[in-house]
């Protein structure tokens, strides 16, 4: 059951007569067993996955841990994000470890160094996470997947034992950072509960009454107690809301560009271009496959960063917009989210059934005769490509719209033109990659 508001609550004035009606997602958030039920369920599932990661029944046909984590959960994440905002952060098993640790004794506030540099470290954690994903081939690497899952549990637990609130989720969790920056474009948005009632303190350092930085809300259930007025949610297709300076500053802008580079790297990996790159680059890396991947991804991400720094400098010169860099980076988010969704569809289209087969086979309830691989690893499915291009088109449209406003209000005509050129160039690059046949083997 949810912990009582007693102690944490500053006080409540609510009575049964004034309690507002809850609907939709709010009913879930204010459910007395939220998020505990999900935490229990997902944490138990995580323990099972960790067991299978280190004790694989079989490797070649797919391991239960890698199949569930990288071929079901990971491609499902952007869809959860689009429909439910940061709801995953609320029910996440690592968050469960943090919430459990939060019950153990008193803690000090996070040190100022962590509060100042935390967002930058979070952005870097996304980069290293992406690098590890691509270089270690996590989709086919149960051992490394198990190590990462355990490390995430220990970090979430350890940091919450030391400091107040969900410090790990807020500053260092790569998944939390990704969901945070993309949550601006989610159809589900949290809003403050209003000033009518006082509310509990927030583990993400927000005021549940005003919720000035909705992207920080992890929907953890700390303020959505039956007798407390916490956050509410609104649902509707939106083109993204513009964040304030404190909600989307330089670290978040840096993260947006890192994501753009990592999405480009992941897109390349799905095409024959990746094999061509490795054929060319491996001799320069002494035939070390992983180092060669790290070199390629770092170069690609570095190139994206360099081009954007140059572009934002041009925008700044033309418009004197002090938020040129952040504004440009923000306008890329719908496009890179579109790429994330399109890649996820590629994985789900070709990986969903084999993954479910693996889950069934590992459960020992069903037989397994093996199967021949497809003759050609790279496919072009016209229906799938059509859906992917529609998603990319919507992403481009939203990015295009954001180039007009940036984050600092109306820009000069030259500034808008520069932003649009950069967005179009990025979209053209992704368009080219998605025209190439992509891997069906994930």
């Amino acid at each position: 059951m949810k912990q009582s508001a007693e102690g944490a609550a500053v006080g409540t004035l609510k009575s049964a007569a004034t309690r507002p009606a809850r609907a939709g997602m709010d009913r879930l958030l204010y459910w007395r067993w939220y998020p505990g039920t999900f935490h229990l369920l997902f944490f138990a599932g995580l323990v099972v996955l960790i067991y299978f990661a280190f004790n694989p029944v079989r490797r070649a046909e797919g391991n239960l841990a890698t199949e569930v984590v990288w071929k079901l959960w990971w491609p499902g994440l952007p869809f959860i994000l689009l429909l439910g905002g940061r709801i995953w952060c609320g029910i996440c098993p690592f968050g469960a470890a943090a919430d459990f640790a939060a019950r153990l004794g008193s803690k000090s506030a996070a040190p100022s160094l962590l509060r100042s540099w935390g967002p930058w470290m979070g952005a870097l954690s996304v980069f290293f996470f992406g690098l590890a994903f691509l270089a270690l081939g996590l989709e086919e690497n149960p051992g490394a997947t198990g190590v990462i899952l355990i490390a995430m549990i220990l970090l979430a637990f350890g940091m919450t034992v030391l400091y107040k609130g969900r410090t790990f989720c807020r500053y260092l969790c790569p998944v939390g950072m990704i969901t945070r920056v993309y949550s601006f474009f989610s159809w589900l948005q949290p809003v403050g509960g209003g000033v009518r009632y006082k509310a509990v303190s927030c583990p993400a350092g927000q005021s549940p009454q005003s919720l000035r930085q909705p992207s920080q809300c992890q929907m953890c259930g700390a303020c959505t107690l039956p007798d407390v007025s916490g956050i509410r949610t609104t649902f509707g297709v939106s083109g993204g809301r513009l964040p304030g300076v404190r909600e989307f500053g330089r670290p978040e802008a840096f993260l947006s560009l890192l994501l753009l580079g990592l999405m480009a790297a992941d897109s390349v990996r799905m095409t024959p271009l990746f094999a061509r790159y490795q054929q060319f680059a491996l001799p320069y890396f002494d035939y070390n496959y992983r180092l060669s991947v790290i070199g390629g991804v770092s170069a690609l991400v570095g190139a994206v960063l360099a081009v954007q720094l140059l572009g934002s400098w041009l925008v700044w010169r033309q418009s004197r917009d002090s938020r040129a860099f952040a504004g440009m980076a923000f306008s890329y988010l719908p496009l890179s989210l579109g790429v994330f969704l399109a890649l996820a569809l590629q994985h789900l289209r070709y990986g969903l059934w084999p993954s479910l087969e693996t889950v069934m086979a590992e459960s020992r309830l069903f037989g397994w005769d093996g199967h021949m691989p497809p003759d050609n690893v790279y496919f072009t499915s016209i229906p799938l490509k059509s859906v992917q291009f529609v998603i990319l088109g919507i992403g481009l449209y939203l990015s295009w719209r954001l180039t007009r406003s940036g984050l600092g209000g109306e820009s000069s005509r030259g500034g808008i033109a520069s932003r649009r050129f950069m967005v179009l160039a990025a979209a053209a690059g992704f368009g080219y990659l998605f025209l190439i046949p992509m891997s069906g083997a994930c």
Partner: protein
Amino acid sequence: MLGAGALVLLMATMALAGCGGGSDETLAADVDFPQFVYRSEDSLKGYRIAATYPEALEAVPCYCGCEQNPEKYQNLKDCFIDRKTGDFDEHAAGCAICLEEAIDIGEWMKEDLSLREIRDRIDEAYEGRGKPTDTPMPSE
């Protein structure tokens, strides 16, 4: 500070990525492989093993289900090297079972096992994971 510790851990992950993916000195490195071989780390390793120990791969059956096409696939080597043309075949680059078998063979060859012992180990490890090709038992 724990935050810095986390960063160190993440950097260690990167270091881990750098280790272990290196070139195995015992395998053929400078073979002019076709592009598809470079698709994944396991693929490159598998084809290098196939180029180094073709006789070992020829002595063991493939369990991936390729026995459905017995004209083309009669042993594990056929999944890597076309039996008619002698060129590298793309089949194994997209087949996790072929690659896993080859990588296992690569490890066992370092133990200086005979082809018969390799065959016995493969049959024991992969039995029940798919129908094997009809591959004659090696004499030695």
